C-alpha cells in the first residue's frame, strides 16, 4: 500500500468516525450492508475505468452502457425468456465487443478517446431509449430467478454478494495490474507511449485490451445494477456513472495523463465516494447538494495531493542544489 493509499484510507476512517459520532445509525448493519452493496456495484465499474485511465485514455460511455446493457439483460430474461446464464454470457460478450470497437477506433483509426467514448455515451443512451420505446424495462409480477437474485442481490454471512464479487475481481485485477507483464505494459504506455513502442511493445493491442477489460467489467456491473434496481427506465438509469467511476479513479491517485494509480487506490476512491453519499443522507444534508459535496471533496483531495507533490519536488530540488554546492566547495 502506497503512502497515497494510506492517506486515503485514513481519510475514509476519519470521515466514517465523524459521521458515526453525529449519527450512530451509520454503523447499523443494514446501513453498512446497503453502502457496501453500492461500493460493490460502483467498484466494479471503477476498476474498468481505471484500466483505461492508466493508458492515458478515458471511457465516457459507461453510464449509457449500464443503461443499454441492463435494459437488454432484463429484456433477454424477462421478455424473451432466455436462460439467465446465456443472457449473462451474451451481455458480457457484448460489453467486450463494444470495448474492442472503442479500442480499435482509438488505436487503429487514431481517434481521441474522449471523442470516441463521448459519441458512445450519446449513441448507447439513444439506442436504449429506442429499444424500450422510452418505456421501462422490468420484470413481470411473479417472475423469479432465485440463483441469479442470490448471486446479484443476495447476501452471504450478512455481506452483500456484490461486495464479495468486487473483492474477488479486485484481487484478480490487482495481480493483473501490479504483477503481470500486461500490467507493466499498461503503465509503460501510460507513462510514455512512444518509448514503449520503441521498446518493442505492441502498444495498440495493449490499449485495445484495456478498453475490452473496461467493457467487460462495465457489462458485469450493468447486470448487477439491473438486478439491484429490478426496473430500468433507460432515460435516466446509469446517468453520470462514468463520472462516478472517473472520480473514484482520480480520488484514488490516478492521473488522467496516464501511467499513475493503483488498484487499491481506485477501490478506496469508490469507498470514499459512497461514504460521502451516505453522509449526505445520514446528516440530513439536502440531497440536492449531493453532487456539490462530492465535487468539493474531490477538488480538495486532488488539490492537497498536487500541492504535496509540488512541495516534495521543491524539497528534492533544494537538497540536490545543496549537495551540488557542497560538492563544488569541496573540489
Amino acid at each position, binding site marked *: 500500500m502506497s503512502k497515497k493509499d494510506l492517506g486515503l484510507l485514513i481519510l475514509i476512517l476519519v470521515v466514517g468516525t465523524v459521521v458515526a459520532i453525529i449519527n450512530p445509525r451509520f454503523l447499523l448493519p443494514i446501513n453498512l450492508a446497503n453502502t457496501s452493496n453500492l461500493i460493490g456495484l460502483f467498484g466494479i465499474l471503477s476498476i474498468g475505468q481505471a484500466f483505461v485511465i492508466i493508458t492515458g485514455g478515458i471511457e465516457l460511455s459507461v453510464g449509457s452502457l449500464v443503461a443499454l446493457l441492463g435494459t437488454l439483460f432484463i429484456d433477454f430474461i424477462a421478455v424473451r425468456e432466455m436462460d439467465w446464464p446465456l443472457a449473462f454470457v451474451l451481455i458480457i460478450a457484448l460489453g467486450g465487443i463494444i470495448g474492442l470497437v472503442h479500442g480499435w477506433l482509438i488505436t487503429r483509426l487514431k481517434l481521441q478517446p474522449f471523442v470516441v467514448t463521448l459519441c458512445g455515451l450519446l449513441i448507447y443512451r439513444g439506442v436504449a431509449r429506442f429499444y424500450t420505446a422510452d418505456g421501462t424495462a422490468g420484470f413481470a409480477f411473479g417472475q423469479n430467478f432465485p440463483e441469479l437474485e442470490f448471486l446479484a442481490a443476495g447476501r452471504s454471512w450478512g455481506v452483500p454478494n456484490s461486495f464479495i464479487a468486487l473483492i474477488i475481481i479486485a484481487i484478480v485485477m490487482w495481480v493483473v495490474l501490479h504483477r503481470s*507483464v500486461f500490467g507493466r505494459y499498461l503503465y509503460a504506455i501510460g507513462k510514455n507511449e512512444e518509448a514503449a513502442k520503441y521498446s518493442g511493445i505492441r502498444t495498440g493491442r495493449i490499449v485495445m485490451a484495456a478498453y475490452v477489460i473496461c467493457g467487460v467489467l462495465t457489462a458485469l456491473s450493468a447486470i448487477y445494477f439491473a438486478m439491484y434496481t429490478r426496473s430500468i427506465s433507460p432515460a435516466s438509469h446509469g446517468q453520470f456513472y462514468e463520472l462516478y467511476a472517473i472520480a473514484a479513479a482520480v480520488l484514488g491517485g490516478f492521473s488522467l495523463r496516464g501511467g499513475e494509480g493503483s488498484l487499491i487506490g481506485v477501490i478506496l476512491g469508490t469507498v470514499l465516494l459512497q461514504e460521502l453519499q451516505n453522509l449526505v443522507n445520514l446528516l440530513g444534508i439536502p440531497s440536492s447538494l449531493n453532487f456539490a459535496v462530492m465535487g468539493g471533496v474531490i477538488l480538495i483531495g486532488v488539490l492537497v495531493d498536487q500541492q504535496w507533490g509540488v512541495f516534495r519536488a521543491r524539497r528534492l530540488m533544494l537538497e540536490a542544489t545543496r549537495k551540488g554546492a557542497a560538492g563544488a566547495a569541496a573540489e
Partner: protein
Amino acid sequence: MAQRLLSGMMNYSDTSIVASAPFLSLEGVRKTYPGVVALDGFSMEVRAGEVIGLVGENGAGKSTLMKILGGVTRPDTGTITVDGLAHDGLTVEASIGSGIAFVHQELNLFENLDVAANIFFGREPLRAGPLKLVDRAKLRTQVAPLLKRVGANFSADTPVAALSLAQQQMVEIAKALSIKARLVILDEPTSSLPIAETDKLLDVITALKAEGISVIFISHRLHEVERVADRVVVLRDGMLAGTLSKSAINHDQMVKLMIGRMLKEREKAAESARAPGSVALSANGVRTSAYPDRPVDLDVRHGEILGLAGLVGSGRTELARVLFGIDESFGGSLLLDGKELVLGSAADAVASGIFLVPEDRKLTGILLDLSIAQNISLPNLSAHARRSLVSASAEAATAEKQKSNLGIRAPSVATRTGTLSGGNQQKVVLAKWLAMNPKVMILDEPTRGIDIGAKAEIYGLMRALADAGVAVLMISSDMEEVIGVSDRIAVMHEGQISGILDREHFSQENVLLLAVGKRPK
C-alpha cells in the same frame, strides 16, 4: 530620478561603444552539475561589432555557456560583465534587458501567425481606446525596416508556416533586432539548412556586424565559421582550449583544438577493426516518409560499424525508423541474413534481433519514470516472468549484470532513470538491447549531449559489439565521430545514399561533399 538614472546609463553605453570596450566579458566562469563539470574557469570577451565563432564538440560546454548568458542558470563562480556592469550571474530579465538575444536551433515561432505578429508578439502597438486593439498599420510600418535590415525577401503578413527554415531564422533575427539587441547569439543556425539558404544567413550575420551588433555564431560547420568569424573561441571539456584571431582561423587549427587528445584514441579504436562478415541487414529500394520518391539501398555487414552521415533532414532518422519497423516503408524490401523480412511494428524488429537506440533518449529511448531494471527488462519482459507474472528478482539480476558490464553509475538498479546523467541514461538504453541478442544494432546520434568520458565508453561498446559479429549502423552528425569510429561511411543526401566511403577515402571533405550531393575527391 528614474529618468536621470536611465539617461545616465544610456550615456555610459554610448561611450563604451566609442571606446570599444568589450560588450560582454566572462571571467573564470565555472558551472558544475551533479557528476559533471560543465564549465571550468572559462573566460572570453566579445567586442561591439565583432563576430565570434564558438566551436567545440557536443558536451564541450557550449549549451551551458548559452544557458548562463541567457540567464537560465547561474554559474557557481565567476563574473559576467555586460556593458560595463559586473554580475555574478544573469537573470533572464537582465539578459534581455542588456540586449542579449538568442536564435535557437529549434525556433520559437508561432507557425500559425504571420511574420509581423511573431516579431512583435506580446509587444504589439495598440490603438487608443479601452479595447486594446492591435494597431495593424503601425505594426506593419515598424516591421518593414526590420525585415529590410535582415534582407528578407518576404512580406510582413506572410504566415510563418509558409516560410523556409532560413527565412524563419531571419524572422527570429528580426525579432532580436526589434528589441534592440546588441549581441545576437546564433546556436547552430545552419545545421538544418541547405547550402543556398546558409549563404543567405551568413550574409545576415555580416549585415549585423556592419551595424555594430556583436554576434556569437555557434556551429559545427567549420568552413562557415571560417567565413564569417573575426575570432574563434574553442571550448573543450568545459575549458577554453584556445582562441584564434582572424588570420589564424583555419579548419585544421580548429579541429586540433576541438579534438585534442581524443583523435588518437578514436583512431586506435578503429584500427582494431577486422574484415567485415556477410551482409546482415539489407535495404533494397526502401522509401521513407521524408522522401517517399527516393529509394534507398543500403547493406550493413556483420562485424562492422557502418557510419551513416549526412545533413540533418537528409532522411537518416526516417531510414532508421523504417529499419526498426516504427514507420512503414513505401515499397522496397528488407533482407535479414538473406531472408525476406517484413516489419509491421517495432515489436517485429525486436523479435528478429534488430534494435534501435533512438535519437531522442528522453522521448523514445527510455521511460524516465521507470527504474533502471524496469527499463532494461521492458523489451524482453516475458523472459523475466513466470506464467506472465513479472519476477522482480529476475529483472534485478539482468539489470545488475548489465549495470556492471556497462559501468552504469547509479546507486542501485531500482533507481529511477530520470535522475541519471545523460551518459548513464544512454547506457541504460544500450543495456536493454545488450541484455537480448542483437543481430543488427542501429544507433541514432548515440553520443549527443553526453560528456566525453561516457562517449569513449560508448564507442568502446559499439566496437565490442562489432567484434562480436553484430552489424552496427551508427547515425551521427558529429563528423569527427563518424570518421573516428566507422569502418565504412555511407552518406545520405536528400533521402538517398549519395556514396559510401572506405577507410582510405575517409575525410571530412569527402563526407561533406557527399552530404551536399557532390562527388568526393
